[in-house]
């Protein structure tokens, strides 16, 4: 596809030793996980020591990477290294509940940790809370990075992001969850004994009272009691959730981090990508570029859809071979039309975001579920493109 955008040089990105974190993001269903895995494999085969954090890989892809053990730590993918024997690949799949539990266990004495783990509110929070997955992905990234600094096992971490409704959730959810847990509201509401409502004014105090009673009515008093004991327990054991989230967020703004936004050539996916690109700019986060994934390739052939259709119409009325040729021409015309529509959508994106570098990965006839398939995607990602 000829696209009027700077080329996203994948090999330059992967070969840049100052880049230590690559975050793959985009709308659901565009191929984030596969792209993250393909980038990781390619970097490892070019001699880097890579760890890839995947969120929810398809079963067969997970097996291909040896991710059958779910112990929430990176495992070496056997047999992957560069031509000169340098380079390695570790892979892991995020276990959100386990990660949260480990944060608790790592920061509280065993007895207190157990009390938190047993708390019903904690259990709801760590397994089904909106935003927990994003938060834990970020937490895990922070841990992996700290471990890398410590023992030097890998010099590049590639992260896949959770399948959220919006790609922005990855950036926003940790902050939302952190500020919620550290928020004044939760404290006032759950610790009336500490002088709740002091200094907040009569009307607000009245409303708090009203709210507490409504909440108790509809949820039962046990819920607020659970929330209260949870907050009290985390309060005394480890530092603010918000600070932890903030620290990882800062990591994402650092010069060693680079974002790769992935989109399929469809309206919705490109709209998500546009939101995300805007947001990265606002938050001064480093964007490497756009991977336009699963694109129907146009042919170099100078035979337009209209020409092919017209010729097909002429041939159809004749013999068997003519009918066959007509069918092939119609197939070609159909592909050209799909190509033109996708090019149009991609061009609208690049017109609105002219500085964003892009690379194009053609749609493959079948899904990827082995190392060889990932290698092929890697080759396509790094392929030279006309501009």
């Amino acid at each position: 596809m000829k696209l009027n955008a700077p080329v996203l040089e994948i090999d330059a990105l992967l070969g840049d030793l100052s880049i230590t974190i690559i975050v793959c993001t985009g709308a659901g269903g565009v191929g984030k996980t596969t792209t993250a895995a393909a980038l990781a494999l390619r970097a490892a085969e070019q001699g880097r020591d890579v760890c890839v954090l995947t969120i929810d890989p398809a079963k067969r892809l997970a097996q291909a990477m040896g991710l059958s053990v779910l112990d929430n730590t990176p495992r070496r993918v056997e047999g992957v290294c560069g031509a000169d024997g340098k380079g390695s690949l570790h892979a892991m799949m995020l276990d959100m509940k386990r990660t949260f539990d480990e944060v608790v266990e790592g920061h509280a004495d065993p007895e207190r940790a157990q009390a938190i783990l047993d708390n019903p509110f904690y259990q709801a929070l760590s397994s089904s809370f909106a935003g927990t997955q994003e938060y834990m992905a970020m937490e895990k990234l922070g841990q992996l990075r700290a471990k890398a600094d410590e023992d030097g096992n890998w010099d590049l971490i590639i992260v896949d992001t959770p399948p959220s409704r919006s790609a922005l959730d990855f950036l926003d959810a940790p902050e939302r969850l952190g500020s919620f847990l550290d928020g004044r509201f939760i404290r006032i509401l759950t610790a009336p004994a500490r002088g709740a409502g002091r200094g907040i004014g009569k009307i607000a105090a009245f409303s708090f009272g009203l709210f507490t009673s409504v909440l108790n009515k509809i949820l039962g008093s046990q819920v607020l009691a659970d929330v209260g004991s949870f907050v009290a327990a985390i309060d005394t054991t480890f530092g603010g959730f918000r600070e932890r989230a903030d620290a990882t967020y800062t990591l994402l703004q650092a010069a060693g981090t680079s974002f790769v936004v992935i989109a399929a050539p469809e309206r919705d996916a490109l709209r998500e990508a546009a939101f995300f690109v805007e947001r990265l700019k606002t938050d001064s986060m480093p964007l490497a570029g756009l991977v336009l994934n699963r694109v129907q390739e146009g042919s170099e052939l100078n035979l337009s859809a209209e020409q092919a259709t017209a010729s097909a119409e002429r041939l159809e009325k004749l013999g068997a071979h003519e009918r066959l040729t007509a069918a092939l021409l119609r197939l070609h015309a159909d592909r050209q039309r799909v190509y033109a529509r996708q090019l149009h959508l991609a061009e609208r994106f690049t017109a609105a975001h002219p500085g964003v570098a892009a690379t194009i990965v053609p749609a493959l006839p079948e899904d990827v579920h082995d190392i060889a398939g990932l290698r092929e995607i890697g080759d396509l990602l790094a392929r030279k493109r006309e501009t």
Partner: protein
Amino acid sequence: MWPGVALHVVSGKGGTGKTTVAAALALALAHQGKRTLLMEVEDRQGIAQLFDTPPLPYEERKIAVAPGGGEVWALAINAQEALLDYLDIFYNLRRAGSVLRRMGAIDFATTIAPGLRDVLLTGKACEVVRRIDKRAPNAYSAIVLDAPPTGRIARFLNVNSEVSGLAKVGPIRNHADLVMSVISSPRTAVHLVTLLEEMPVQETADGVAELRAAHLPVGGIFVNMTRQPMLTGEQLQEARSGTLPAKSIEQCLNEAGLGDSGGAIVSTLLREANDHALRVDLEARESERIVELGLPTFFLPLISDGIDLGGLYELADLLREGGVR
């Protein structure tokens, strides 16, 4: 199909066109003077985008007229508004509710109890279903819910187990029981939308198993964006094995005035035919896996120029031809 069903829940993997199918289903069910309600729950405003209207408020409004004079109405709900609604209906607290909302308290409540969110959303859908029983003047003949994706659907609908960890007694518990009595009954059908690709089909199979395990009533499978093979079975066979008659094709191209210097056109056409054959094979394999699920299955074509109202009518007609009533 599904004559006794009042609540149609439509789920599917992201990117499969769940909202489109839900809208087409609402149109098909609104045939001949009936009135249906299309609901969405995820703050995405997908319905407004699809019908090209301004964002929907928390209010039922007419969005399309079905063939034969029926009507489709639409409603975008969110947990905050549904909680205010709930407080109003059960506690007569509408005004206090708006104070609480200004303080961010409503947001807070739906955040500390994720199960509460879902029970409020499904509860709103069930409230609309119960209008039918009450023969209320504003009753619809059917409700179509554009629901969360397959990965979360069983948990979203199974509000009983969600709430059980939260509240053992009390109003919200009773509310959940009421919701469950509608959702797990034959008056509800949960449909899944898929594409003929490996991952969406796998998710659909997993989703069906999960719904069945939770004793939720599975309806049908909607295979979206399907394309007819553009070559005959024999031609596909030859395309696959690389035995299409290149020489004759070249001659035909000459006949048609497409002089082919160096065989560039022929080789491209042959490669494209081979790609096409591979894709047709893959789709056939995935189709088979869908059929093995043993559920009513509808194949909907790809509307190549993007979905508009005309495209939705086309899909709705196909659903009716397939027996959707």
